[in-house]
């Protein structure tokens, strides 16, 4: 019964989305406020209906209702409760349901915001958003119905793929989707602006918080996924330039460009047409990402269930939305009033360079990811584009980008002073150089690229924070005054500094991977394996049985310079319902580095294959992304971004001590 309610609610949501799409659109054309006002309740209704459908499916999972095909294929009555819930989105049908659920959630939140958003813009935005919802609801109902019944119902389910039975994977998809799908709002705003033919700073101010929210979630989602792959897949890598990873990285790059270009649009009323295009492209890349992951057209280390029919369906959705929106852009963009042009040496000039580099970097990733597909379609030749390609193309673009990041932050709007900005960054540069030299001395060499990365990471870190220091402190000022002034800086300034500093921290973590050590050996109980300063003694292998798997646990004693520092366990599991083996890596955190143990198979003599890594400062990679996301979140709480507070925002901007804002206020 509950399952039927879920199925019905899904169909109802489709009906409501059609209403939400058609009536407000018509209302906006004929300027009928009553028709336009339909958008908000319809959006809320569609969200409620899909939330009910989602709850129904979750319910079927919790009670292990094996009359539902989806539950049979992805659940097991003995599975831990948490994974029963995460199993809902640990499969194709359920994850698409989560996708539309988040889509309508965003629509509902837009509908609820009481703000200065022009009525027409809001109605059109919700209407465009509903069209996306319709497409994906049709996709779910026709090709991937999560509520399909199994006749006859089996007694036991086939269990969730063991790799997905993990806390990291329980939160990764929702975070990632909040990011992916969040960009649909920016997209809907862009299309609405094109239809409306009007675009201004109000538009930019309205769209920026949404883009930023989506971006923060996407940052967290990618970071979580990377950490999951690191510890769960058992071979110690954290990024593989795999198509599925690139699929989430491309919208991130485009989205990063978008949050920067909307700033220019808001403050300087420029880059308008470009911002619209970027908003369209960002969501298009999210759609392409969904297609790549869901259709299985590319061989990936993270490949999920694939079905050609579904792939074709998503491809059609893709062509309609991307083709349609770009055609609309080509038709309407020339009619939009162009923004002004400005000096190259200025904050906005630096942001243009930022956009240029980010979108170029995104393009190189795009080419590398899709070229094999295009080549196969054209010539039938099968190739793979691996990490060497991406390292050769992405790094030379990303490194200058990170290097100019603190500079852009230091330049003033309108007319910047390059020399002055460089002088303000001298301290940060000197400090970074000194630290890179210290690293060189301590490690006695190392790859040049890694040393460059260390310097770059420190420069980005200190350069970003020096912005806060130079804005609040000058020579001879008491620290208490400086602290008060620093606290008085707008939250967006703090957010920017912290987010940029986080990038620096991540770069440091990535650079540090160059000093990782690994060793590989067959170890018998009592024997040791060592990497770096650490030696691990295998104490023994003991079997144990859990409800859905059998495991062999290898217990190691860890020694550093002969001194015991603790124990570490790694497991080899065999999940009985699927007969599938997995490796649970053993991790021990020491400072910011980690010891990482992966197990291989046992050999006939009683030894076990062990791969041991010492990864110094590896945690910085994910700490940095968390800091970056925190910075984004902090910016989001800035008064200026709180919709509906433009008056206060103006007062805030005129505050003394805010150099760039002063320049703006006097302009």
């Amino acid at each position, binding site marked *: 019964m509950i399952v039927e309610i879920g199925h019905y609610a899904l169909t109802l949501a489709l009906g409501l989305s059609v209403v939400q799409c058609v009536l407000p659109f018509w209302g906006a054309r004929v300027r009928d406020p009553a028709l336009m006002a339909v958008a908000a309740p319809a959006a809320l209704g569609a969200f409620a209906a899909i939330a009910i459908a989602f709850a129904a499916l979750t319910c079927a999972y919790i009670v292990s209702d094996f009359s539902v095909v989806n539950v049979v*294929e992805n659940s097991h009555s003995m599975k831990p409760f948490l994974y029963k819930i995460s199993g809902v989105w640990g499969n194709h049908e359920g994850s698409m349901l989560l996708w539309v659920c988040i889509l309508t959630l965003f629509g509902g939140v837009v509908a609820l915001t009481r703000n200065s958003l022009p009525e027409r813009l809001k109605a059109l935005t919700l209407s465009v958003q509903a069209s996306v919802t319709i497409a994906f609801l049709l996709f779910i109902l026709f090709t991937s119905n999560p509520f399909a019944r199994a006749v006859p119902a089996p007694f036991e389910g086939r269990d969730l793929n063991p790799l997905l039975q993990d806390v990291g994977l329980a939160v990764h998809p929702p975070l990632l989707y909040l990011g992916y799908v969040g960009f649909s709002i920016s997209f809907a705003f862009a299309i609405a602006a094109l239809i409306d033919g009007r675009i201004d700073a109000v538009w930019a101010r309205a769209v920026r918080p949404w883009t930023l929210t989506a971006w923060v979630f996407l940052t967290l989602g990618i970071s979580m996924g990377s950490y999951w792959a690191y510890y769960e897949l058992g071979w110690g890598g954290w990024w593989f330039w795999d198509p599925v990873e690139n699929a989430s990285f491309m919208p991130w790059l485009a989205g990063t460009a978008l949050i920067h270009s909307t700033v220019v649009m808001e403050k300087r009323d420029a880059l308008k047409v470009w911002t619209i295009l970027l908003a369209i492209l960002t969501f298009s890349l999210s759609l392409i990402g969904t297609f790549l992951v869901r259709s299985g057209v590319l061989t990936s280390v993270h490949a999920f269930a694939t079905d050609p029919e579904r792939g074709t369906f998503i491809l059609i959705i893709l062509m309609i939305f991307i083709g349609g929106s770009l055609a609309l852009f080509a038709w309407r963009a020339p009619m939009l009033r162009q923004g002004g042009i400005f000096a190259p040496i200025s904050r906005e000039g630096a942001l243009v360079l930022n956009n240029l580099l980010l979108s170029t970097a995104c393009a190189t990733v795009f080419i590398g990811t899709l070229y094999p597909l295009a080549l196969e379609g054209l010539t039938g030749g099968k190739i793979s584009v691996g990490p*060497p390609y991406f390292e050769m193309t992405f790094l030379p673009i990303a490194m200058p980008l990170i290097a100019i990041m603190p500079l852009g932050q230091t330049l003033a709007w309108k007319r910047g002073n390059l020399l002055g900005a460089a002088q303000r960054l001298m301290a940060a540069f000197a400090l970074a150089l000194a630290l890179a030299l210290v690293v060189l001395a301590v490690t006695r060499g190392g790859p040049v690229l890694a040393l460059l990365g260390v310097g770059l990471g420190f420069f980005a870190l200190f350069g970003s924070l020096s912005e806060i220091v130079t804005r609040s402190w000058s020579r001879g000022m008491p620290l208490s005054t400086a602290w008060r002034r620093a606290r008085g800086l707008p939250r967006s300034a703090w957010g920017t500094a912290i987010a940029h500093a986080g990038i620096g921290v991540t770069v440091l973590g990535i650079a540090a991977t160059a000093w990782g050590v690994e060793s590989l050996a067959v170890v018998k109980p009592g024997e040791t394996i060592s990497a770096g300063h650490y030696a691990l003694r295998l104490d023994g292998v003991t079997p144990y049985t859990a409800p859905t798997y059998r495991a062999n646990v290898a217990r190691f004693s860890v020694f550093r310079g002969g001194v015991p520092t603790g124990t570490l366990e790694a497991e080899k599991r065999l999940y009985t319902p699927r007969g599938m*083996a997995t490796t649970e890596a053993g991790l021990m955190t020491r400072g910011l580095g980690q010891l990482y143990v992966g197990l291989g198979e046992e050999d006939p003599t009683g030894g076990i294959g062990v791969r041991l890594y010492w990864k110094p400062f590896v945690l910085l990679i994910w700490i940095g992304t968390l800091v970056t996301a925190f910075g984004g979140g902090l910016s989001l709480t800035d008064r200026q971004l709180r919709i509906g507070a433009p008056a206060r925002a103006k007062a805030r901007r005129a505050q003394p001590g805010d150099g760039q804002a002063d320049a703006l206020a006097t302009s």
Partner: protein
Amino acid sequence: MTRKQRRLTLIAGGLAVLGTALGLVLFAMRDTIVFFRSPADITAMNIAPGTRMRLGGLVKEGSIARPGGQTIHFVVTDGAGDIAVRYTGLLPDLFREGQGVVTEGVLAPDGSFAADSVLAKHDENYMPREVADALKEKGLWQHAESGGDAATVTQ
């Protein structure tokens, strides 16, 4: 700066970045691309030793041998050709005889294949797509409905 100069600076800057990126892409494409080959392709095409490629097919029944340590020898077959593969390192959890596998490495002068990474299925139903296609061509294809996770083990 006049308006015209500003615009020119902007356009020149953009073109410079795009040009550099294009150069990098073309350069990288020439050197870093790896072709996918089946054992039959390799015997038929007379590929020069030292060429980096991906080799895919089935792990031949009874061909896995462990000469010691972490090194493993096995044969990848597609029915029409066999290639002996050497690999040192941990294998994916579901590496088995009779199952699909994709390995990446270099062709040795003696015609064997020195693999430095093994990508195998991570689910009993998963078959890397290239392998599935190659096997279909050779008429060795039996079944593959749903997929799962594949994982690479890189040395």
